[in-house]
């Protein structure tokens, strides 16, 4: 790609280099405000966290902070809970990303039309995103209740015995996954919807004159046109999934037997509740590196068409 660009450049060398210099200048000036803000309020704090990762830093004893080299990392790699949390995080991500994105796309297609009530439906699908987790947790914990929940009543109807759901180490994570897909799909739906709005109407009109069915339109127009949007949705869904925190924090607090403990929960517990800021920072750094590695291995998806 780079070489092709150079060949292209050589042809118009004189006008191009001037234009290129101008484009560079404009480019820098356009990104500067955002980049400066990010450096101060995201990069700098994160680098501080990286430094803390090499220290023993009890939040309540800031004056006694001191460098301990790789001690935190040595501890980390012998901490069974770290591996368990890493596994849980990966399991959640791998399961939830395709399902949630798929549901989101389906919802977006359902409301991307001229139905009179489409705004009502949009609000409905989006409502779990804006409804407080307090409300959602009360309802889902009651739905999942192992003794008397609505889901168990339904299972009884089909002759299936009571299931423990959130209160069993083998079912808790899947219960959280199911609930998460339901809760967050509306978020990705909005992004898909914005993407669908950008597809030219002409394409559909032309194809329906050619006699294409709705399904063919979906396959040959809608899906390909959503490529960049889908890349975006998959990326941010993955990133949100690896940072999973609120649902297990409220519904299970990482249990039973750490089966829903995620890395973000571990970082919070170590850093805030146990006040081991140094150790928590080390976990953050490793967490960051792992996700970056995964992202790079997925990078071929990010290559733009």
């Amino acid at each position, binding site marked *: 790609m780079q070489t092709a660009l150079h060949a292209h450049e050589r042809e118009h060398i004189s006008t191009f280099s001037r234009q290129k210099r101008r484009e560079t200048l404009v480019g820098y000036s356009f990104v500067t405000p955002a980049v400066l803000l990010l450096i101060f309020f995201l990069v700098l704090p994160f680098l501080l966290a990286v430094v803390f990762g090499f220290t023993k830093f009890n939040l309540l004893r800031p004056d006694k902070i001191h460098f301990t080299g790789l001690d935190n990392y040595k501890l980390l790699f012998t901490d069974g809970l770290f591996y368990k949390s890493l596994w849980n995080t990966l399991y959640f991500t791998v399961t939830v990303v395709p399902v949630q994105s798929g549901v989101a796309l389906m919802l977006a297609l359902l409301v991307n039309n001229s139905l009179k009530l489409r705004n009502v439906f949009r609000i409905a699908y989006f*409502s779990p995103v804006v409804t407080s987790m307090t409300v959602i947790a009360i309802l889902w914990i009651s739905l999942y209740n192992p003794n008397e*929940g609505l889901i168990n009543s339904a299972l009884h109807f089909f002759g299936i015995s009571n299931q423990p759901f959130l209160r069993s180490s083998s079912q808790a994570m899947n219960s959280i996954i199911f609930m998460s897909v339901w809760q967050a799909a509306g978020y990705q739906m909005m992004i898909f919807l914005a993407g669908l709005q950008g597809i030219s109407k002409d394409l559909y009109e032309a194809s329906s004159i050619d006699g294409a069915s709705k399904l063919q339109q979906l396959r040959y127009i809608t899906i390909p046109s959503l490529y960049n*949007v889908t890349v975006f949705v998959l990326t941010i869904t993955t990133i949100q999934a690896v940072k999973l925190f609120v649902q297990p924090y409220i519904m299970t607090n990482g249990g039973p037997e750490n089966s829903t403990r995620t890395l973000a929960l571990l970082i919070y517990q170590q850093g805030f509740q146990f006040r081991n800021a140094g150790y928590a920072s080390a976990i953050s750094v490793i967490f*960051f590196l792992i996700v970056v590695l995964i992202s790079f291995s997925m990078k071929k998806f990010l290559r733009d068409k």
Partner: protein
Amino acid sequence: MRNTRTKVLLYVLNIIMSLLFIIPLLWMVVSSLKPENQIFSDLSSLKSLLPLHITLDNYRMAFERIPMMKFLFNSLFYVSVICISGLGVNSICGYALAKLRFRGSEFILVCIIALMIVPFESILMPLYLVINTLHWVNTWFALIVPFIANCFSIFMFRQFFMDIPNEILESASIDGSGPLKTFASIVVPLSGPVFATVFILDFISHWGDFMWPILVTTGESLRNIQLGIQTFFTLPPIYYGQIMATLTFTTVPIIVLFLLLQKYYVQGITSAGIKG
């Protein structure tokens, strides 16, 4: 004929799915209108969604308990400032990354994607130290400035701007428009849905701010609505009716915003733009 059938099918599907999704919101609103002792006794029966004895007591008591309007105004103020200034800063950055070629743009993009990964929990304390060094604790700056630039928004803008045909931009630049003017007069009008989506998603994420405002504000003057809600959770007995009333009250602005922004979701803007 076929059109009507599709329509009916769409309606049926949408109605069934909507019910599955909207129940919590409905339950919250209905519960906010019920006497305290019915909220949980009705739970797990259909009665939980039927307001049989409507009362506004919960709202009255919630409003007596906390300065609701003040907290609501505080939230609206600082979240709007974040989102509006964010639209400017992030869209222009996303545009540069999508459409301008310059050395380092790919590196910046990779960094921005990577930075999205950093969990907020892990930078909370260091960020607090930075804010404290700037003497911004207990000021609006602490609530607003760190969150204007947003990797998520930049990346989203970038992905959507990628889809704008280069020909439109080139024709504008041949007409002699400067890059800023091209952006403002061509790109922005073409991108209503993206701006609307970024705005609402950014708005929602900050509307729920809780941890950070606790750290950087003390006292009531800067307190936001989420901190206000926590008042009702502080000590048992917890009055869920008042909680539901407050939560309903704080969900209304988001729904209104959502409806207002729907007018930007009009299909075919891009094609109209190309023709014009």
